[in-house]
């Protein structure tokens, strides 16, 4: 038999039929929905269709979830109640605002064991690639496609090309999955993996925790890749075992047996391969308005004088929006606030990384820390991390998408500069005129304690942090 990639195996396993034009009809094992699904439910209602598999669909309130007190506006409250009402009407389990399991969809799916190796996971959110960290075929879809999955539990999709990103070598202390992601995105471009399914491989990936793997897969879309995946291994199985929705007893044994084959065959051919040496990666920050505009913290702001014509003009416009001076050392850039949260970096490991830097120190700027779920919040409080953040002067708030997408009222004011653990530095993403710098949780903590973008590595000296 021809050697197959993990993508080949997952695709074949989920393919119900294939049309002459090459489009496959794929079975969806898990469909996760959030408040944004209201357009899809409206489409369903308009054609008087029902949900095909409400038992395979799970809802959660995250995009509009208030992080402090009640919803900020009646519109926001309506978005939340519409999801809860639709879930009830169609028989879908929903982790509503008051549910102890509520949190960000890409945090709670894995946390509850709803995301399992070998599954096909869909969600009307581009960061659905996160779930690929478990060896799942996971991708974001639009509202029309959400309606299609609700109505049929299937999705039409053409098989993408395969891209393997191999990362070998030892990461330096203070360098993590976020830096790996920004490194490859800045190397290949924000559309570098467009039309391709990424498999992350190599010893560095194997050494990452599930949280790190989720961060890496989460950011696949920022390099244009709709899919990101990592073959499951013992780290994956140890994470999954005992989760509320994970298989048990005889099912667990059968599942383990099935999951063991979820890896690319040794001789499998990829359409494209990229290699990255982890030892070369230093902490990275974005300086522009696309995730590809990222540089090591030790660098300086790019200079339009080094470019020609339209490129120079575009760079000048970006620097004007970002309020940066050409040639300015990145570590001189003063920040106004920080944000630790989002589906990219709000898991317990992320909070520990930030707390390790903030412990016993004061933040020079205000900031929010929003854990990825209520259960992450509970765990952090049990470990005393909340006290580290509060003593440093940061606000310890509720769980949700919060200031990453600025839908719930948490926004960065125009002209303010925010060091953020999130996934998008797009113009206006965190609020109109907001200036976002993406970086790891440890690097955001470093920006908080210094008041400017800063290399976290010296701040970790003597702290015994890996």
């Amino acid at each position, binding site marked *: 038999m021809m050697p197959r990639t993990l993508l080949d195996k997952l695709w074949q396993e989920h393919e119900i039929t294939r049309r002459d034009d090459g489009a496959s009809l794929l079975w969806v094992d898990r469909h996760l929905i959030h408040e944004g699904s209201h357009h899809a439910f409206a489409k369903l209602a308009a054609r008087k269709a029902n949900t095909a598999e409400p038992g395979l669909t799970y809802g959660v309130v995250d995009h509009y979830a208030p992080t402090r007190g009640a919803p900020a506006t009646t519109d926001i409250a309506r978005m939340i109640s519409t999801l809860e009402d639709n879930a009830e009407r169609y028989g879908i389990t929903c982790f509503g605002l008051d549910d102890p399991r509520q949190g960000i969809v890409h945090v709670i799916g894995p946390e509850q064991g709803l995301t399992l190796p070998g599954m096909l996971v869909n969600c009307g959110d581009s960061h659905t690639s996160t779930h690929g960290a478990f060896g799942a075929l996971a991708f974001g879809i639009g509202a029309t496609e959400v309606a*299609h999955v609700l109505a*049929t539990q299937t999705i039409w999709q053409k098989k993408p090309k395969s891209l393997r990103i191999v990362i070998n070598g030892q990461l330096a202390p203070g360098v993590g999955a976020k830096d790996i992601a920004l490194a490859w995105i800045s190397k290949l471009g924000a559309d570098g993996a467009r039309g391709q399914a990424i498999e992350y491989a190599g010893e560095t990936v194997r050494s990452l925790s599930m949280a790190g793997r989720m961060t890496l897969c989460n950011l696949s879309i920022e390099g244009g890749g709709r899919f990101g995946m990592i073959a499951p291994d013992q780290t994956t199985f140890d994470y999954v075992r005992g989760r509320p929705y994970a298989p048990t007893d005889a099912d*667990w044994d059968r599942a383990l047996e099935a999951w063991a084959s979820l890896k690319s065959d040794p001789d499998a051919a990829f359409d494209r391969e990229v290699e990255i040496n982890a030892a070369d990666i230093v902490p990275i920050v974005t300086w522009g308005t696309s995730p590809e505009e990222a540089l090591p913290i030790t660098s300086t702001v790019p200079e339009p004088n080094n470019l020609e014509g339209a490129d120079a003009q575009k760079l000048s416009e970006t620097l004007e929006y970002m309020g940066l001076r050409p040639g300015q050392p990145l570590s001189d850039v003063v920040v106004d606030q920080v944000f630790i949260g989002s589906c990219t970096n709000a898991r317990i490991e992320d909070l520990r990384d930030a707390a390790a830097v903030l412990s016993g120190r004061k933040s020079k700027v205000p900031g929010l820390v929003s854990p990825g779920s209520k259960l992450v919040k509970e765990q952090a409080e049990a470990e005393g991390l909340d006290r580290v953040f509060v003593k440093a002067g940061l606000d310890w708030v509720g769980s949700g998408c919060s200031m990453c997408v600025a839908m719930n009222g948490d926004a960065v004011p125009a002209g303010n500069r925010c060091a953020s653990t999130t996934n998008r530095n797009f113009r206006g993403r965190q609020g109109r005129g907001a200036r976002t710098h993406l970086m790891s949780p440890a690097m955001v903590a470093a920006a908080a304690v210094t008041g400017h973008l800063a290399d976290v590595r010296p701040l970790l000296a003597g702290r015994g942090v890996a």
Partner: protein
Amino acid sequence: MTGWSRHTGLAIALDQENVDTDQLIPARFMSTPRSEGYGQFLLNDQRRDHTGALIEAHPLNLNPKTSILVMRRNFGSGSSREAAVYALVDFGIRVVLAPSFGDIFASNAVNNGLLPARLPDAVIDRMIAQLGASTAQVTIDLPSSTISIANESVRFDLDATWRQKLVNGWDDIDLTQVHADAIAEYRALRAQQKPWIFSAQETAG
């Protein structure tokens, strides 16, 4: 959705790359019911000042009858929000010409009758240079995948399935119902082979 084969309209160029869906419609407008129309929010932060008033000099405000946009690479990258397509469609945009599109955006576009037509970088460069701040009458022919501008005709790249969907105005749910038996058969086999995927509800209580 009704299909279409040919469209003639007013084209303008916006010399911008990586126009992501957050720019196409900022998240704060997305709690608005679709019935109110999303066209008003299209590229809000470029087209409107802080008071919400239209900035007269913006090309889309100067030419509100624009139906064809010429853009640079990676148009519609980022979030899967279909609202970005609604904003374009409700404004009156029928076609976007660019060297590349965000994958999810392109699917969403086709599901709403909006054509994401891929053209080589060099062709887009030339169009943007020729159009500048002016407008042009452009005709798009879907069956032949051609764009006619002035006396020139250029072929664009479009997935054959997508062309069919656009021309026929097909809805995927209808197409999928044809495979109902195959889906049922697959489901039965999967439930037998991977019962833990289906038993989650029962085991978790």
